[in-house]
C-alpha cells in the first residue's frame, strides 16, 4: 500500500500524525491543569482551616496564657488593671470563637480554663498571691495544655484532610499522567511504525537505485562483465520508481557506448603492448563512440610518431657519444699504459744504455773482449726479455676477463700495483700495501684490478696536482665475516664536499681536459657494483680521500 504512495504524501502523513498527537496531548494537559487547579483550591481551603485554628484559637490562647502569667507577676494592682484590659476582650473573643468549632468537649474544657483564669484573677484580687501563683502554674497550666493539645488534634485532623485532598489531587495527577504517557507511547509507536514502513520503503528504493548505480559504476569501471544484466528492479510508483526507470534507460545507452569505447581501449592497450615490446610503429586504428576517446586516439598516434622520431635521434646521439667516450677511454688507457710502460722501462733502458755505453767504451779502448761483449749481450737480452714480459703483463692486465672466476684480492691488487708502482716511485709517492688478511672473491679479476688502478691513478694525479709534501697512498686489505674490505687512502687533501656526490658520474672530472676523461671512477663504480655486486664509496679523512670497496666473500657468492 505504502509503496504506491508518493514520498511527499508519506511525509505529509507523518506530519499529520505528529500534529494529531500534539493536539491530543494539549487537550489532556489542559484537563490536568484544570483538575490540578481545583485540587489546589481544595488543599488551600483545608490549609486555611488549619490556619484558622492556629490564628483564632491557639495563638489567642497563648496570648491569654501569657497575660494571665503577667497578671500573677505584676507588682501591684495598677499593673494588673492594665493587664486585665487586654485579657478581657481576648477571653470574649475566644468565647465567641469556641462555639464555632461545634465540639462539646473542647467547649467544656475552654469553659473550665476560663474559670481557672477567673480563679487566678480572684486570688490576685483578694491578695492570695500564692494561690494565684500555684493556680496559674499548676491546674491552669495543665488545663491550658490539654486545651491546646485538643486544638492541635483538630488541627491535625484538618491537616490530615488537607493531606488527603492533596493526595487525591496527586493520584488524579498521576492517573492523568499515566494516560498521557500511554497516549504518548501509542503515538510514538504508531509514528515509529509508520515512519519505519515509510523509511523502509524509501531506503529500499534508495538501496535499489544505489545497487543499480553501483553495478553501473562497476560496469563503467569494468569490474563486471560488460554484458552482465544491470537493471534497477523497483516496482514503486513513487519518485524513486521514476528515477529507476530513467536510470535503467541510461544504463543501456551507456552500455552500448562503453562497448564501443572498450574496443578502442583494447586497441590502445594492444598498441601500448607493441610499444613496450619496442615496436614503435604500431598505431591505433579503431574509432570510439566518444569524441574524447577519438581525440585521445589521434593524440596517441601523433605522440607515438613523435616519440619514435625522438628515440631514433637520441640513439644516434648516444651512440656517437659512447663511441667518443670509448675512444677517449682507450686513448687515456693507452696514455696511461704508455706512461706506466715508460716508467717500467726507464730502469732497464738505462741499464741497457749503460751496458751499451760500457761496451762502447771498452770497444773504443779496445778493451772489449768477446766474453765481455757476449756477457753484455746476454745481459741486454735478459733485460729486454724482462721488458718484453712487462709488455705481456700490461697486455694481460688490460685484457678483459673471459668470465667470472674465483680470484685472490691480494693478487689482483698486486697486479694493479705493479702497473703503477714505477710511476709512483718515480714521483716519490710513498706507496704502501697492508694486507691484514687476504680474501678470495668471485668475479672479474682484470676488471677489478683496473678499478683499483683507476683509484690509485686518481690518487697519484691529485697528489701531484696539489704538490703534496711527503705524499703517500695506502692500500689496506681486510676481511670481515661476510665481506672483504679494500681501503685506499691518501693525503691529497680530500674531495671537495660540493662535488662528493658527483665523482662517480660519467664524464665528471676535476682534472685538466688533457689528463682526465671523467670515465675512470664511473667505470670503477660499474665494475665493482654492477658487475661484482659490491660497493664502492668515497669519503674524506683528516688528510685526504678514502675509497672503500666492499665485496662479498667468495664462499657466499659461490653458494
Amino acid at each position: 500500500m505504502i509503496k504506491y504512495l508518493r514520498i511527499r504524501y508519506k511525509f505529509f502523513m507523518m506530519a499529520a500524525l505528529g500534529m494529531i498527537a500534539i493536539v491530543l496531548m494539549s487537550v489532556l494537559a489542559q484537563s490536568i491543569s484544570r483538575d490540578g487547579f481545583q485540587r489546589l483550591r481544595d488543599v488551600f481551603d483545608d490549609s486555611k482551616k488549619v490556619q484558622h485554628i492556629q490564628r483564632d484559637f491557639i495563638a489567642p490562647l497563648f496570648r491569654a496564657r501569657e497575660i494571665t502569667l503577667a497578671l500573677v507577676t505584676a507588682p501591684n494592682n495598677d499593673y494588673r488593671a492594665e493587664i486585665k484590659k487586654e485579657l478581657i476582650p481576648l477571653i470574649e473573643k475566644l468565647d465567641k470563637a469556641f462555639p464555632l468549632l461545634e465540639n462539646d468537649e473542647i467547649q467544656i474544657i475552654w469553659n473550665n480554663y476560663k474559670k481557672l483564669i477567673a480563679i487566678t484573677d480572684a486570688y490576685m484580687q483578694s491578695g492570695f498571691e500564692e494561690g494565684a501563683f500555684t493556680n496559674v502554674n499548676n491546674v491552669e497550666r495543665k488545663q491550658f495544655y490539654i486545651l491546646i493539645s485538643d486544638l492541635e488534634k483538630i488541627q491535625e485532623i484538618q491537616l490530615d484532610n488537607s493531606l488527603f485532598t492533596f493526595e487525591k489531587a496527586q493520584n488524579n495527577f498521576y492517573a492523568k499522567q499515566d494516560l498521557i504517557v500511554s497516549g504518548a507511547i501509542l503515538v510514538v509507536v504508531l509514528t515509529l511504525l509508520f515512519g519505519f514502513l515509510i523509511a523502509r520503503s524509501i531506503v529500499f528504493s534508495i538501496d535499489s537505485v544505489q545497487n543499480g548505480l553501483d553495478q553501473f559504476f562497476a560496469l563503467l569501471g569494468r569490474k563486471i562483465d560488460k554484458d552482465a544484466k544491470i537493471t534497477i528492479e523497483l516496482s514503486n510508483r513513487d519518485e524513486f520508481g521514476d528515477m529507476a526507470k530513467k536510470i535503467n534507460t541510461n544504463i543501456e545507452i551507456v552500455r552500448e557506448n562503453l562497448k564501443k569505447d572498450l574496443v578502442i581501449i583494447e586497441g590502445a592497450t594492444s598498441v601500448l603492448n607493441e610499444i613496450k615490446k619496442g615496436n614503435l610503429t604500431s598505431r591505433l586504428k579503431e574509432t570510439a563512440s566518444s569524441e574524447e576517446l577519438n581525440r585521445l586516439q589521434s593524440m596517441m598516434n601523433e605522440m607515438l610518431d613523435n616519440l619514435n622520431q625522438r628515440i631514433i635521434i637520441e640513439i644516434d646521439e648516444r651512440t656517437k657519444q659512447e663511441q667518443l667516450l670509448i675512444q677517449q677511454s682507450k686513448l687515456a688507457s693507452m696514455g696511461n699504459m704508455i706512461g706506466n710502460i715508460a716508467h717500467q722501462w726507464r730502469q732497464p733502458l738505462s741499464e741497457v744504455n749503460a751496458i751499451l755505453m760500457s761496451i762502447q767504451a771498452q770497444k773504443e779502448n779496445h778493451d772489449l773482449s768477446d766474453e765481455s761483449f757476449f756477457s753484455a749481450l746476454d745481459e741486454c737480452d735478459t733485460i729486454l726479455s724482462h721488458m718484453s714480459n712487462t709488455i705481456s703483463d700490461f697486455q694481460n692486465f688490460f685484457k678483459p676477463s673471459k668470465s667470472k672466476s674465483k680470484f685472490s684480492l691480494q693478487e689482483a691488487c698486486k697486479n694493479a700495483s705493479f702497473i703503477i708502482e714505477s710511476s709512483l716511485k718515480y714521483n716519490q709517492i710513498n706507496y704502501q700495501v697492508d694486507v691484514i688478511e687476504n680474501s678470495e672473491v668471485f668475479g672479474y679479476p682484470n676488471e677489478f684490478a683496473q678499478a683499483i688502478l683507476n683509484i690509485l691513478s686518481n690518487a697519484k694525479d691529485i697528489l701531484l696536482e696539489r704538490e703534496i709534501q711527503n705524499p703517500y697512498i695506502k692500500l689496506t686489505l681486510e676481511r670481515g665475516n661476510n665481506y672483504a674490505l679494500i681501503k685506499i687512502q691518501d693525503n691529497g687533501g680530500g674531495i671537495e664536499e660540493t662535488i662528493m656526490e658527483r665523482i662517480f658520474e660519467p664524464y665528471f672530472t676535476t682534472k685538466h681536459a688533457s689528463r682526465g676523461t671523467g670515465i675512470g671512477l664511473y667505470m670503477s663504480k660499474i665494475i665493482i657494483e654492477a658487475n661484482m655486486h659490491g660497493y664502492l664509496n668515497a669519503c674524506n679523512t683528516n688528510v685526504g680521500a678514502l675509497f672503500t670497496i666492499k665485496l662479498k666473500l667468495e664462499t657466499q657468492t659461490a653458494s
Partner: protein
Amino acid sequence: MIYAWGNEKIIQPIYYENANIEKDLINERLKESHIKVFIPSIPYHYISKLINGTLLRIADTPNGWEYMMAISHLKIDDLTYEFTLREGVKFQDGTYFNADSVIHNIEAFLKKPYTYTDIHNRLKSIEKISPYKIRFHLYKPYGMFLHDLAAINLYSDTYLKKFAWKGGATGANTEEAGPYGLGPYVLTKGYAVGRKQTSTIELKANPYYFEEGKPYIEKITVYTQLTAEESVQMVLNKENELDISPIPFNKKTEATLSFYAKLLTMPSMNNIMIYFNLINTGSVLSNKEVRIALNQAIDQHSLLHFVYKNEGKIAPTEASPNYKVVKSATKNLKAYGENISEDEKNKIKNILSGITLNVITQDRFMFLWKGIEYQLNQFNVKLNYTITTSEKDIYEQLLTNRENPKMWDLLTWGNDDWYGNHPWTTFFAYRTSSEWCAIKEDNKLQGFIEDFFTYSLETKAFQNTVENIVNQVYQNAYMLFVPSPNLVLAINKEVFYMPSSVAIMPLWEAKISKNHWSIRNGNYPNERLLPMKPIKVLK
C-alpha cells in the same frame, strides 16, 4: 503536687481548706501535748515573756500593754504610781506572790538595773501599801514607766537569792532552768540570756499559772539557731519537727501547698535594723554623703515586691510605720530611694563606685541581702559577708563595738517589738551612751531622746519628740533603711496560734487539735493533707 480529680481532661482548681479547726481543738492540757517552735530573733526576750511574770505584759493593745500580775493601777501624780496586785497567785515553785515579792524584785532591780531604757535614772523607790498594793516613786516624770514595768521580771525569792539582778544590755534574763517565775511556762532545759543561749530550750506548762486552764499545751521545745533552710524543711515538709516558725517570704507558696503547715501573715512591728558602724571612724560610712547615697541606692518598692513578696511596708527609717506614732512622724518623709532621676543615679554612682562593705548578718536575712546586693551592684558597691545562724554572734559584734570597735560596716539585727507597741524598741539604738548604739556622737539626738523619756505615749509632746528623732535619724541616714517586714509564719495545721504584732508569743493561748502529731494515734488523715488557705491577719 497536683490536686486534680474527676474527668482527666477537666482540671479542677486546687481546693484550699479553711484554716478553721476550732471543732477539733483540744481545750484542755493533755500531758503529751507538745509543740516545737523556732525563735530566731531575741529568743531570750520571747522566752522570758513565757516563763516570767511582770506587773504589766506587752500586748497587742493600743497602749502596748495589758495587766498581768497587777490587776489595776493609779497614776497618783507624775512621780507616783500605785498598783493593785493579783491575789492567790503562786510562783512556779509554789510560793505565794504578793507585794513583798514585788518589793524584793524592785529593790534587787534598783541595785543593778538594766540600762537600755532610762528607768535606772528615773525610778526612786517602791512602797508597800498593803499585801496586794504597792506604790512606785520616781525622781522625775517618766513617760515610759509602764512599758518598763512590763520588762521587769518578777522572780521567786529563791532565784533572787541565787542570781539577783544583773542589769546588762539584754536585761536580766533567767540564767538557769528552774521554777523561778510566774509565767505560763517553766524553763526546764537550756537558757537564753542574749549573748549566750543554748540551741534548744525546753518549756513545760506552769501548774500554778494564774489564768485557769492555760496554757493548753504541756510542753514546748524552742530552737534558737536553725538555718532558714532547716527551719523551712522542718516546718513545711515534716509533720513533727517544727510547729511554728517564721519563714522567708519567698517560701509562702510552699507553705500554702504544704501537707502539714499553713501560712499566716500579719503586719508586725518587727524592725530589720541595718546598722552603719559609725564607731569605726576609719569607715567610709563616717561620711554622711556616702550613707545617704547608700540609702538612695535602695529601691524599697523593688525590695518590697521582689524580696519581701509584698510582705511589708515602705519605711523611710528603720522604725516600722506600723507604729502609729512613727507613721504619723514620717508622713512627710519619703524613702530615700524613691523617684531617683538618672542624674541623681549618676551622682550616687560617683559617690559609691568602688566601695566594698563588710556585712555581718544572720543567715535568715540573706534573702534581703541578696536583694540589696543586686541594687548596690548597680552602683559598683561590693559586699563581703559574714554569716551566722545564731543571734548571739550578732550581739557579740554589736554590743562590744563601742568599747572595742569592730571591722564590720553593716550589721543586721531582727529587732522585734520587745517594748510593746512603742518606738523605743528602735530608738534605743540611737542612744550613744548605750551598747546598742553604733552612732559615735550626736548631742542633738541625745537631747531629743531625753525629752522622749519624759513624755507619755499619748501626748502631743511625745509625738513631736518622735518626729524630731525620726527626722534627725533620717537626715543623717544613721542606718540603711529597708521596708519593715510583716510577720510571716508557717504553723502546723493542727496548731491554733494567733501571734502578736509585738514581741511576745502568746503560746499559752495556743491550742492543738486532736490530729496533732503529739497526741494523735495513727497516721495523719489524708484529707488534712490538702492545702490550706493562708491566714492573713489584718491589724
